[in-house]
Structure formats: C-alpha cells, structure tokens
C-alpha cells in the first residue's frame, strides 16, 4: 500500500518534472530562434541607423542602431555630389535586373518545359547536359579568357546578363513546378491539334505562375546583387552597376572623394562613414521593401528546390 502511494507520488512528480523540462526547453528554443533572427537583422539596422547619423557623432561614439545625432547629411551627399553617378549605377542595375530576369525566366521556362515533355526522348540527355556544369566547371581563368577574348564581353552591357542568364538550379526548380501541372491538360490540347509551342504558351506558362514568380525572384535577386560580372568585365564607369559602385566605394577611400570632387570641380569634405552606410541602404532598400511580398514565394522556392535539388 505504502509502496503504491509512493509509486504514485513518484509518477506524478516525474510527470510534472518532464513537462517542466519540456517547457524550459521550449522557452529556450523560442529565445534562441528569436536571438538568431535579431542577429540576422541587427547588422542591417546598424547600417540604417548609421546612415541617419551625424558623421562626427559616428566617429566619436561609434556606429549605432539609433542615431545619437540625427542627420540627413549622408543622403544629401548621395543625392547631391554623388547623385549623378549613383543614379547612373542605379539605372544600370535596374536595366540589368529587368532585362536579365525577363530573359532568364523565358529561357529557363522554355528549357524546363522541354525537360518535362515525356515523349521527347532526348530529354534525358538534355537533363545531363544541364546537370554536368553544376558539378564540374572549368574554373575562373578559361571562362574569363573565353568571355573577354572570344565573346568580346569587356565593357558590354550583355556581360552583366548573359553569363548568369541560365541557372541550372532554377531550371530544375521550374521543372519541378511544371511537373505538378496535370499532364492530362497537355494531352487534351495535343489531341486538339495544339503544337508544343502553343501548349507551352497557353497551358504551362500561365499555370505555373507561382513557379515563374519564385524563379523570377531568385533571378532578380542574383542580378541585383551581382558584382562579380562587373568586376570581371566592366571598366567604364557608365556601366558600373550599383553593387560594383558600392564595392569600389567601400574598398577604396579615394574613390568616393574623387567621385564627388570630379562632379563639383572643387574639393569638399564628404561624410565618409555615413555616406557608405547610406549607399548600402539605398542598395538593399528595394530588397527590404519587396521582402514581405516576396518571402512567401522564396520560402516556397527553398522548400520545392530542396525536395529534389
């Protein structure tokens, strides 16, 4: 009898103990995840905060999320003495992103559609054709020489688009989206005498809207963020995209001063640190603004892509 009560006590005690430890663990998870999210966000907030600070207060007090001395000087510099160059870089980036994304989505969707036509025998070979470069690559040097010497991409607008126009990962992602469209639709259209081109245009293209938007976002982000291609091929400043302009600004203190002085014709003092941060904010601004809209598609893309990478 005593033993039984004792046992019972032990059990209840045990029960409370485990649920308490579960709760503890769960709270820990909530906190850890929250902290990680803050760590992800904090650097961006730091850039925003600094960009709205007074330069002197940054040099004295350091970088801050909440500016100690509010100032719009950095943005005035960006719009003023650096205005023309930054606007130019912005236009290049927008032009590259828009043309590049449209071209990439169409080219990739067409290819992905072909990979998805079951009766088309060579599709296995095409699959391999696309897949092999994902694993093996020639490396930087032969690629660089080919592009500059044989394709003449130096200082060419197309140099910022063509080399990353076709991304195998995105094509496979699209193929996975296409796969989820019922084949009967295409079959029925075929019986009605529709050509492949028409089936692609009328059935697959409109029905895979979510997939196209997802892949389009991935492409757009990669074009927006790219500075590698500019680094390799662009010397003329009229063709600098925003990221490459920012890269030069961050890497070379003289660059920013030269820029401002050249446009004004006389020497001025530029609030260096805050201007850099303001340029960063201008660069990531569109991504952050579009993010709430885009993140639904992006999360989906990440998951669909993971199913069969």
């Amino acid at each position: 009898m005593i033993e039984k009560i004792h046992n019972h006590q032990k059990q209840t005690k045990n029960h409370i103990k485990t649920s308490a430890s579960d709760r503890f663990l769960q709270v820990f998870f909530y906190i850890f995840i929250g902290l990680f999210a803050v760590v992800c966000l904090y650097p961006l907030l730091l850039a925003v905060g600094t960009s709205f600070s007074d330069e002197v207060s940054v040099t004295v007090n350091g970088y801050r999320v909440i500016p100690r001395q509010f100032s719009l000087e950095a943005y005035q510099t960006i719009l003023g003495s650096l205005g023309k160059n930054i606007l130019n870089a912005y236009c290049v980036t927008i032009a590259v992103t828009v043309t590049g994304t449209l071209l990439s989505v169409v080219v990739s969707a067409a290819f992905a559609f072909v990979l998805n036509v079951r009766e088309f025998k060579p599709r296995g070979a095409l699959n391999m054709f696309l897949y092999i470069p994902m694993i093996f690559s020639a490396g930087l040097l032969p690629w660089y020489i080919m592009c500059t010497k044989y394709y003449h991409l130096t200082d060419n607008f197309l140099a910022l688009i063509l080399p990353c126009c076709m991304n195998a990962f995105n094509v496979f992602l699209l193929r996975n989206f296409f796969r989820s469209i019922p084949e009967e639709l295409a079959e029925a259209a075929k019986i009605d005498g529709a050509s492949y081109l028409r089936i692609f245009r009328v059935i697959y293209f409109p029905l895979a809207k979510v997939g196209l938007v997802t892949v389009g976002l991935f492409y757009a982000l990669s074009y927006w963020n790219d500075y590698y291609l500019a680094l390799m091929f662009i010397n003329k400043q009229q063709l600098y995209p925003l990221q490459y302009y920012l890269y030069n600004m961050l890497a070379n203190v003289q660059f920013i001063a030269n820029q401002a002085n050249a446009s004004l014709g006389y020497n001025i003092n530029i609030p260096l640190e805050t201007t850099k941060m303001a340029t960063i904010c201008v660069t990531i601004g569109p991504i952050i603004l579009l993010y709430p809209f885009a993140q639904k598609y992006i999360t989906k893309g990440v998951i669909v892509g993971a199913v069969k990478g």
Partner: protein
Amino acid sequence: MKSTSRQKQNPGGSPRPLDRIAGHFQKYYQLWLLALPGMALTLMFAYIPMSGLVIVFKDYNYKDGIFGSPWVGFKNFEFFFSNFSKAWRATQNTIILNLFYTVFGTAVAVMLAVMFNEIRHKKYLKVTQSLSIMPYFISWVVAGGILRALLNYDGGTINNVLVSFGMERVDFYNNPKYWRFILTLCNIWKGAGYNGIIYFSTIAGFDTSLYESAQVDGANLWKRIRYITIPLLKPTIIIMFLLSIGKIMSGDLTMMMSITNLSPMLLETTDIIDTYVYRSVIGMGDFVMGSAVGIYQSIFGFALVLFSNWLVGKFDKEYRLF
C-alpha cells in the same frame, strides 16, 4: 530476323536512320527551338570554357588566344611546382575554410531546423523564419561593408563593447589569426537560416505518429529530438556533408573580396585558390601561375566530386549525383 519482322509490320515506314532523324525533327522541331537558347548559353559559358583548360599546356599570350598560343608541354607545371608554397597556402586555406563552413554551418542549420520545428506559435515562426533567411539575399558587398562597421579598430561596435568592458581594442583588419573564425561566422550569418529552412522542410516530412507514440510512452521533448528527429535527419546530414567534399576545393571569390578586400595583411589565412588565381592573373597578368593553379583546382575538384559521389553511393545509392 528481328528486323525483317519489324519491316513486315510497317511496310510503308522506312527504317533508314537519316529519315528517322528527319522525322524526329519534323515532329519535335518546336521543342528543340524552345531548348535552343538555354543550350546555347550553357554551351557558351559552361562547356566551351572547359576546352580552354588546354591553356595549361600553352605559353599563353593575349594576341593569339588560348588556341593560337604555342604549345609548351609541361613547362607550366615545372614553374608551378617550383613556386608551390603560395599555391599550397591557398589550397590549405580553401580546404580549412570550407571544412569550417560545412561543419559549423551544418551544425547551426540543423539546430535552427530542430528549433523551428518546436515553435508552436505560427506568427512567431513566420517572422523568425523570414528574418533568418533575409541575409541570404543580401549581397556580400553589403555584408562586407557592414562588417567593417562592426569590426573597425576605432568606432567599430565590437571594439566599443570591448572598451566599455575595460578591455583592449582588437585590430581585426591587421590580424590574420581571427579571420577563419570571422569568415565562418559571416558564412553562418548568411546561409544558416536558409539551410535551416531546408532541413526544417525535411523534418516536417517525418512521420508524426512516431512523435505521438513516443509522447504517449512518456518521452520528453529532449528525448524526442535526441532519439527521433536527429536519427531521422542523420542520412540527410551525412549526404550533404559528403556532397560538400566535392566542393571543398572551390571558394567564393566575391565573398572574400568584399569582406577582406584582399588586404595583404590578411592573406595568410584568407588567400584561397580563387583569390590567388584572381590576384595572379587579373592583378599581375601572370597567366602561367594562374592557369596552373586554376587547372590544379579543376582537376582535384573533379577527382573529389567523383570521390564524394562514390562515398555517397556507398552510403545510399538514391542520393548519388550521377
């Protein structure tokens, strides 16, 4: 015997291969048309450069190009091996950094995934998830710029914190010894959230009845993670790990350039093969060394891909790359 019977079955159809090809194109020319732009781009920027690998046997000059330059046999390799120390440093750095990225990156990603899975509050989950993958979509240039604000000698956030605790300032940008650690943290910041979601979607696909029955049997949360989630996740982790062996010789030039600006002070720990090739070829115009190192990277990379694929095959044939 077989072919005669086939001919009998369709006496009108011609078995000649040329006609068959013509028939194929007549039926499928539109599909080939659709695939053409993608094929052309892949050919131009992936396959044709591979042929440029012959550069390693050439005395390259810009005027004659890759194919017109005179052959020199193995002379470039002799030069390469006599100047091997710098290339060896770059190789070591590449491998060490990639190992760090993979080990610590995977550890954090799996931890995040397991924790995401236990968050019951839908809105909290959504917000933290979208914040965690945000850095993935921020360029390395921007990340490098902000990192400078964190690590600067005077005014940098970390140094300010150190000073406020009465400690000495650390001159990060002149001290190569910190950079393996810093680069790994940057990599985790940028990619762990993204990879965490991938692992999380894997966990979400696990059989929930396992968890329910474990809970009925009195297994607490920690035990459920330890004895169900982690073991079920293990194959995925191992495969990702093995696949990353194939990429251990390749580095991210853009990341390194934006974060360290190829500062000569930091090259000791941050000079990877890609930056080495970039510096020697595009910086100094030294095609001999650059091409030799580049080729050595490609060949070893190729061998490692085959090796990791073989290992994956040993582990689970399903997940082989080819």
